[in-house]
């Protein structure tokens, strides 16, 4: 076969012109982001959907919530899967009936979801920012090159959950034919947790058409959220809708957002990065689950080295120790003085990672700048000052170290002001009577061992309604302090830390993990 014939045959076999739809799909968004450039992200809240779903893209549409029947749900099943964008409708079950959550549309690479109660989830090309049941923001998927549709694929979903360290039990149902397509139910349980997802997959496309999220309540599984997926080509109308969403300042409507803005206005530490730019750390903490969360203003793209006290990385499984992670960060809705606030959070790759975190930053191409954060600030003074106050304890001083402490609430969860006394507990979170969430109340506070001056644990209940929140309970009359158990736990942790340091000093033996990490880091610094 001569080359001319070969050329003819292969040209004929590949003679397929890209359609206009494909041309639209491969065009970048406006002000496309290159490395180092600022992406013009649409304004969006970074609320979170409670549940273990990773990579779910749901979007808000501003419609008044209404009660829907089961038949409505069946009638509104997702359309045939195709294209790169998709839309969702979501409903929440309140124990008695399903109420429609706000549904909406997605833009390529972006999706938002808002429930009738104002809980939002944000998906970006760099990650799905969702909130766990314990209100700790978790970076679900920090991949850089995925599409929203890819996010929904079951294999990625499972990979993310496994990467986060969740032991999974997966059960596959029978394949059935529904509306002319072959579908199969996949139930995913994270062992030991009280949530499970049942995903109904279209077997041809391997994309989900439905997801049911259930929570366990006294050994019974209770439906919580149902999401229907539809896939349609992205249209001009979707763009117009999206622009409308961009202009709505959802977060700024809440007084609590203003409260958090006051806190974030405090600069805990300013880092001068190797390129001369500044990174202002406004909040840096370890979360109850061991995640690290940082709020800062500064470069959008930074390299981050992460290692916990024992040298284990916070990066995902497979990442070598001290591997530089280029993580994109953003807090699209919160700005201070015109500059966006950005946040980063990192998920440990194994349970039990220490909350003492060594975090290093550099800008792309620069040298790492160490910033070691030891823990959270101590309790505030009896007058209820917060670290924002001039006489507040410096959270970065070793004597203020606490191994345990109260941690960040996702501020946008709260749509109504908390009682004023809660400001007395910095970075606070409260539980109702020490219990976990209950179906009949929206708990936005987690109790962490605070007692009032009379020795009573803080007790109360916060209920979040679509129209606002209400608090009932006894606020402390006189100041706040930690209870003895929490204090003892903190002392134990501090002792462990001290022993680590002492062993290192006495033996000079680099065999400890910390020292191996430090030695490696110092070697890398010299080699740069």
């Amino acid at each position, binding site marked *: 076969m001569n080359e001319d014939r070969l050329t003819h045959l292969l040209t004929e076999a590949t003679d*397929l012109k890209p359609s206009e739809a494909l*041309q639209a799909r491969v065009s970048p968004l406006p002000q496309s*982001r290159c490395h180092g450039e600022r992406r013009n992200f649409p304004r969006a809240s970074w609320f979170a959907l409670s549940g273990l779903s990773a990579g779910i893209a749901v979007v808000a549409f501003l419609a008044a919530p209404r009660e829907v029947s089961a038949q409505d749900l069946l009638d509104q099943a997702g359309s045939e899967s195709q294209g790169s964008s998709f839309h969702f409708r979501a409903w929440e079950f309140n124990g008695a009936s399903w109420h429609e959550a706000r549904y909406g549309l997605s833009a390529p690479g972006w999706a938002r979801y808002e429930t009738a109660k104002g809980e939002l989830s944000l998906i970006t090309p760099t990650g799905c920012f969702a909130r766990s049941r314990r209100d700790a923001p978790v970076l679900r998927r920090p991949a850089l090159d995925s599409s929203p549709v890819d996010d929904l694929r079951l294999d990625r979903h499972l990979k993310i959950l496994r990467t986060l360290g969740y032991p999974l039990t997966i059960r596959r149902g029978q394949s059935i034919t529904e509306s002319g397509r072959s579908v199969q139910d996949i139930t995913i349980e994270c062992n030991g947790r009280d949530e499970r997802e049942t995903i109904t997959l279209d077997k041809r496309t391997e994309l989900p058409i439905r997801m049911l999220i259930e929570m366990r309540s006294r050994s019974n599984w209770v439906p919580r959220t149902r999401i229907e997926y539809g896939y349609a080509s992205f249209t001009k109308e979707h763009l117009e809708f999206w622009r409308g969403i961009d202009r709505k300042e959802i977060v700024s409507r809440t007084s609590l957002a203003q409260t958090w803005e006051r806190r974030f206005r405090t600069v805990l530490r300013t880092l001068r990065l190797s390129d001369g730019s500044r990174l202002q750390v406004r909040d840096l903490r370890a979360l109850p689950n061991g995640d690290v969360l940082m709020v800062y203003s500064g470069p959008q793209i930074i390299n981050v080295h992460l290692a916990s006290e024992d040298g284990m990385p916070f990066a995902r499984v497979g990442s070598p120790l001290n591997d530089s992670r280029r993580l994109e960060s953003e807090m699209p809705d919160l700005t201070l003085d015109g500059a966006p606030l950005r946040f980063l959070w990192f998920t440990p790759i194994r349970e039990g990672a220490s909350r003492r975190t060594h975090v290093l930053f550099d800008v792309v191409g620069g040298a790492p700048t160490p910033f070691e954060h030891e823990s959270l600030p101590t309790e505030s003074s009896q007058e209820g000052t917060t670290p924002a106050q001039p006489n507040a304890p410096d959270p970065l001083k070793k004597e203020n170290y606490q191994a345990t402490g109260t941690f960040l609430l996702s501020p946008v969860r709260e749509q109504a002001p908390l009682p004023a006394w809660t400001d007395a507990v910095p970075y606070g979170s409260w539980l109702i009577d020490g219990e976990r969430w209950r179906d009949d109340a929206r708990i936005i506070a987690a109790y962490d061992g605070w007692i009032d001056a009379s020795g009573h644990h803080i007790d109360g209940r916060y209920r979040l309604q679509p129209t606002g929140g209400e608090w009932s309970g006894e606020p402390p009359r006189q100041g706040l302090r930690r209870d003895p158990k929490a204090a003892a736990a903190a002392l134990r942790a501090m002792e462990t830390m001290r022993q680590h340091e002492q062993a290192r000093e006495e033996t000079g033996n680099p065999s400890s993990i910390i020292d191996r990490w430090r030695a490696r880091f110092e070697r890398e610094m010299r080699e740069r």
Partner: protein
Amino acid sequence: MIPTALALDADPPPESLASPADLPLLLDEIHRFVAAFVRPAADAEDVTAESFRAAFGKLRFPIPRHEARAWLLKVARRRIADHRRKRRHEPLDESLSRDSDPSLGPAVRAVLAELPEDQAAALVLKYALGLNAEETAAALKRSVAATNSLLQRARAAFAARGAFLNEGESR
């Protein structure tokens, strides 16, 4: 915001891509490459779109055109392999193609599917996309000599498996 049709046949393509907005200049080549291995057409478009989406977050601009093409082809080849794995139990169903093809296209694609992936890729790049030896080598991340050797083997394999495609050809 939705772009108008791209002008793909105007001036000679630039040697360098200045920004992500220039990436669609490679659409025709990448799509043709994907179309050699993925059908029906809707699936080929999906794979192509996925490859470009991956590029938007990864490539640094400005970038030489041949480097961008090589990168996109690398991603596309991976996506094609993923697509094939998912569909490995399904016959290549050309009847689903919206462009019902009375030509030898389906038969040629069937022969390509039987070849080792690197050989098939080399043939498509050289003979369907019309890349020269250096461009083909760059796209495959090989030396020119290695690429020529690969092409030699690929031509022989294609001729052996696709001998029936020569029938009726006037020499």
